């Protein structure tokens, strides 16, 4: 297997409002390979979006990347650690949009209503390419065409509020691709859309990915989307990756109790009629009231008293690519006295 294009190692992003510390991302690690699709999955509030925003260093204040490495491999083979760059520097800005494009969850409010979509597209093009206004406009039209927007020559002068939700999300994808990045981060790109539009947007992302050899990080809470799109999966819980591996392994041989519970809670057409849908007991703890030990233990059916509530489990390698963070599969380092 080729070297990863993006390697995140022990990423820690904390929010420090006056009331305390929110450990939004607390030691997340994963790899993204060229042309591959990494699905990051987890419940709301588990740190998926903050992880993605940390990569681009656009976490809103008072959030801050505290430690860890975000290693981006450049075309020439050189490696930069995005966690070490000052987020306001030109170098970081060139990576945003230039190397890594980002598609957001809310197509309704992610475009400014005061400028035409052409204006925003041309801005994105001209930020990263030295082209004339005319060329940038031509490029904007091509981008709209690429994402399957009908009549792009006219739509380029439209305002975002004149487009439907699906079309706006296509514009967002066009914006993210404006400077031909090698990585696309799609943060819940279909959550705000209706089901048929969801499928179209996912198809579009896959088509563009194939055409351009894009590496994609797809963030979602929808296991169905993961099954359809991803080739590797990272399951996150409270800021940590609790299990990661190839999509087949995750779906057919899930190891972490949280992954197993997530998979059980998918509605199935094969399920017994009138049976209740399985849910995960309890809810995500309050950000200020993090459980000791394994963060999942209060909701875990297989939690071991005296172990899971005391020690933080370490990562166990099950095989070459399948890793899990749970005491059931290996003794925690801290407990091995």
């Amino acid at each position, binding site marked *: 297997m080729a070297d990863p294009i993006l390697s995140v190692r022990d990423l820690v992003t904390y929010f420090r409002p006056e009331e305390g510390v929110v450990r939004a991302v607390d030691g997340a690690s994963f790899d993204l390979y060229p042309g591959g699709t990494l699905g990051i999955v987890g419940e709301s509030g588990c740190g998926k979006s903050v992880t993605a*925003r940390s990569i*681009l260093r*656009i976490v*809103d204040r008072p959030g801050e990347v505290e430690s860890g490495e975000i290693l981006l491999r450049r075309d020439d083979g050189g490696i930069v650690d995005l966690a070490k760059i000052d987020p*306001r520097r030109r170098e970081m*800005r*060139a*990576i*945003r*949009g*230039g190397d890594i*494009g*980002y598609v*957001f*969850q*809310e197509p309704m*409010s*992610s*475009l*400014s*209503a*005061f*400028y*035409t979509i052409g204006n925003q597209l041309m*801005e*994105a093009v001209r*930020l*990263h390419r030295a082209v004339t206004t005319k060329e940038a406009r031509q490029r904007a039209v091509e981008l709209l065409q690429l994402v399957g927007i009908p009549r792009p020559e006219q739509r380029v002068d439209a*305002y975002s*509020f*004149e487009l439907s939700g699906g079309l706006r999300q296509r514009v*967002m994808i066009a*914006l*993210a691709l*404006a*400077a031909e990045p090698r990585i696309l981060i799609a943060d819940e790109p279909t959550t705000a859309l209706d089901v048929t539009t969801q499928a179209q947007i996912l198809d579009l992302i896959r088509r563009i990915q194939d055409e351009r050899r894009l590496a994609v990080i797809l963030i979602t809470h929808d296991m169905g989307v993961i099954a359809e799109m991803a080739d590797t999966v990272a399951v996150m819980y409270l800021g940590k990756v609790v299990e990661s591996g190839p999509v087949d392994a995750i779906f057919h041989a899930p190891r972490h109790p949280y992954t197993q519970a997530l998979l059980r809670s998918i509605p199935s057409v094969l399920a017994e009629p009138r049976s209740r849908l399985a849910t995960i007991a309890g809810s995500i703890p309050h950000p200020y009231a993090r459980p000791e030990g394994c963060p999942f233990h209060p909701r875990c059916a297989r939690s071991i008293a005296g172990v899971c509530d005391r020690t933080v489990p370490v990562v166990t390698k099950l095989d070459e690519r399948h890793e899990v963070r749970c005491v059931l599969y290996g003794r925690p380092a801290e407990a091995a006295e």
Partner: protein
Amino acid sequence: MLAYILRRLWLGLVTVVAISIVSFVIIQLPPGDFVDAYISNLSASGSMVSQQEAQSLRQQYGLDRPVWVQYGKWMTKVIQGDFGMSMEWGRPVTEVIGDRLWLTIVVSIAAIILTWGIALPIGIFSAVRQYSIPDYAFTFVGFAGLAVPNFLLALIIMYFGFTLFDLKIGGLFSAEYQLAPWSYGKVGDLIAHLPLPALVLSLAGTAQLIRIMRANLLDELRRPYVTTARARGLAEWRVVLKYPVRAALNPFASTIGYLLPFVVSGSIVVSLVLSLPTVGPLLLRALIAQDMFLAGTIVLLLGVLTVIGTFLSDLILMWIDPRIRAGMHE
């Protein structure tokens, strides 16, 4: 679009007529009339006015006729451009207002430019650096500026100007230019006198505008389109100025409607304290003397300007906000 504008114009016209009626009625409301006020004024200084004289004065000004006849006569003349005679000054109203109108406009526009020029950058800074020490400092100064009445500030500045710097502050002209005809010297004199009244007049407005701009911008800075712009690789200051500031400025277009009458009347009390030869103090005096035509003309002027200002705001909003333009095509 044209239908929209025409509809606005028609509504504006109706409003102006309504304003003229209401202002006329309000001016008539206090007991007595100009002649009563005139008589009491004279008797205060010792001389008497006979019943007959009073009667003939009333006849001369038409004060003995019913209110609606007086209104009708006044409006017919107004439409012909004749605003009537000021009873107190004994000269045509247009002549009495005359120069004061232009001076008021000059002072007020200077105040507005100062207000916006100071408040908008500070408001933007305060929002972008929320809860920083300068933000707290500006917030403190802003609230102080809101709380201190303008006339009090004017008095304080005059006092310190006089005691510390031996400056006679007040008025818009030096004594030698007061009654002189317009000349380059007089214009220069005006420019030299302008900054202080403009500063005092702009203070409360500045404080208020800082708060509004800060609040508007804080709302906008949290919107997803700001993060999107950042994720494209746009420099931070360009992100802020192009997207959220643009959105935060939008509501200000609708305040132009209230600015226009302010431009003409100015701040009455501050103008009085600083003895500025502007329209505000004139209106106050006309109302005290029950000088109907003068007061009526000024009030009518303010009303008409409010309507024109609102109409202009609508046009400007239409021009700068694509969402409103789009709404009209439907």
